[in-house]
């Protein structure tokens, strides 16, 4: 029911998983910038192809890829349709449906496809990052980027306890289902409300116990994070190489656009 994070794959060993998370995060951010500033569809689509190819090559199950890409793909479809019929000036074709006239326009189609390509490219970059980097490594990397420690502390605890609460919530939902709590809309709403309430109650109780456990191990209001080692030579080289690659691809596109 709540198959949320399939982060088991991030613990698989492969060349990408071994790269320092800071380097990976920086590269991903650079790729995102390149994609969302792209003026033509070529660069984003190349990024999309590259990332998707890598994800497939890492043998991530097709089902997971489909689940992750389903929503972005449908958004792309909506975008293309919306932009094609709503913006632009040069008509390319028109048709009438149930008495209504639809006119597709070239500029709109182009704009829609560009937006769609950007979505695909950007989503695939983050997807690739997320299947080769466990959450705690990303949190570590974020620390290096000087994110607020308090923000990170809450993030770490939240991430951990989402899984704990998920187990009891899944049991609760199943228990309700087995006693026919979801057979009509009204019952479903009532059951759902109880489920939400119970999850909050469980979280409040868990917060108390967790805080006790933290206190007993010397917690004084700030979660201690370990030191971050310097970025290794190999990782520095990978980082430099990738950033240079992304920058030149972006410049190339810019040049082509002139």
């Amino acid at each position, binding site marked *: 029911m709540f198959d949320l994070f399939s982060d088991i794959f991030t613990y698989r060993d492969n060349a990408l998983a071994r790269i320092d998370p800071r380097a990976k995060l920086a590269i991903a951010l650079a790729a995102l910038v390149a994609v969302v500033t792209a003026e033509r569809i070529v660069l984003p689509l190349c990024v999309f192809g590259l990332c998707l190819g890598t994800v497939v090559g890492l043998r991530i199950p097709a089902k997971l890829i489909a689940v992750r890409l389903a929503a972005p793909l449908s958004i792309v479809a909506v975008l293309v349709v919306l932009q094609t019929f709503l913006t632009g000036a040069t008509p390319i074709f028109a048709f009438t449906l149930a008495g209504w006239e639809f006119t597709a326009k070239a500029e709109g189609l182009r704009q829609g496809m560009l937006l769609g390509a950007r979505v695909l490219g950007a989503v695939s970059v983050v997807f690739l990052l997320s299947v080769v980097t466990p959450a705690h490594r990303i949190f570590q990397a974020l620390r290096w980027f000087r994110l607020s420690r308090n923000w990170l502390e809450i993030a770490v605890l939240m991430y951990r306890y989402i899984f704990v609460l998920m187990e*009891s919530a899944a049991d609760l939902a199943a228990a309700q289902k*087995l006693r026919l*709590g979801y057979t009509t809309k009204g019952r479903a709403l009532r059951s759902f409300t109880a489920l939400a309430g*119970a999850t909050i109650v469980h979280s409040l109780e868990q917060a108390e116990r967790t805080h006790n456990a933290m206190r007993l191990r010397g917690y004084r209001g700030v979660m201690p994070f370990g030191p971050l080692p310097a970025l290794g030579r190999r990782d520095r080289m990978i980082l430099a190489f990738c950033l240079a690659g992304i920058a030149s691809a972006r410049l190339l596109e810019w040049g082509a656009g002139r």
Partner: protein
Amino acid sequence: MKAISATGVHFTYDDGTEALSGIDFHVEEGEFIAILGSNGSGKTTLINLLVGLIKARAGRIMIGGQAIGELSAEELYQRVGLVFQNPNDQLFAATVEEDCAFGPRNLNLPEAEVQQRVTESLSAVAALPLRGRAIHHLSFGEQKRVSLAGVMAMRPSVLILDEPTAGLDPAGEAQMMQLLKKLNREEGLTVILATHSVDMLPLFANRIYVLDQGRVLQEGPSEEIFCHQEMIDRAKLRLPYISRLMYEMKRHDGVPIDGLPLTIGEAREQLLELIPKELIIAGMGEKRP
């Protein structure tokens, strides 16, 4: 007739864990069955399949002669009830009464019938006095019984329980097992329970399925199951304490013991035959109950 059966069932979680690989599991009406297995052997997964919470990747599950997919939710859950391990995860109403009434109300029964079912199911688990109490003020043992009552109120003919005695103290454990025995013997309910505690089971179960790594290692009446020391070791289980004692005396000390006594009663009988009458203190033997 078969109350519930699974044939060649496979199940793999989304993350690739193969939790069940080819399970055959058949229960006749009125049986008392134990699914025995170590942590992670697949007991909960099997149970979730049997009640239709998850779908098998391969294999067939039949409930009372019908494939599970053909049954509507209403039909299915009036035939099979599941009691979860942690009562806190299945009691969602404010009071005991409301919780027990949840199922019957969802069946659109008239209020009088609902109330009657609540009374009946609460008395079946010896929890009638708790009727008006708030759920979150109950003790753990009381919560366990009330969660059983909530399922009983659906009047299932098959009752499945995941670790019904986990977390209970000895008195609570004995009470729960007596309760299940009564439901099975007197009310004719088919009872299936998953557990990894070996000591109480032999007294109650007609048959035991031993699970290990998603497979049925062995299946049979408890006398048969506990004869196979290596199988038991492989399943990361152990013999009941009594059997262990008798096993060691038989195996290492050469004491001639028939089969393998599982219960205190059986062990006592066998040992008394071996101990010379003249050693027994006169006058005491009479008191034997």
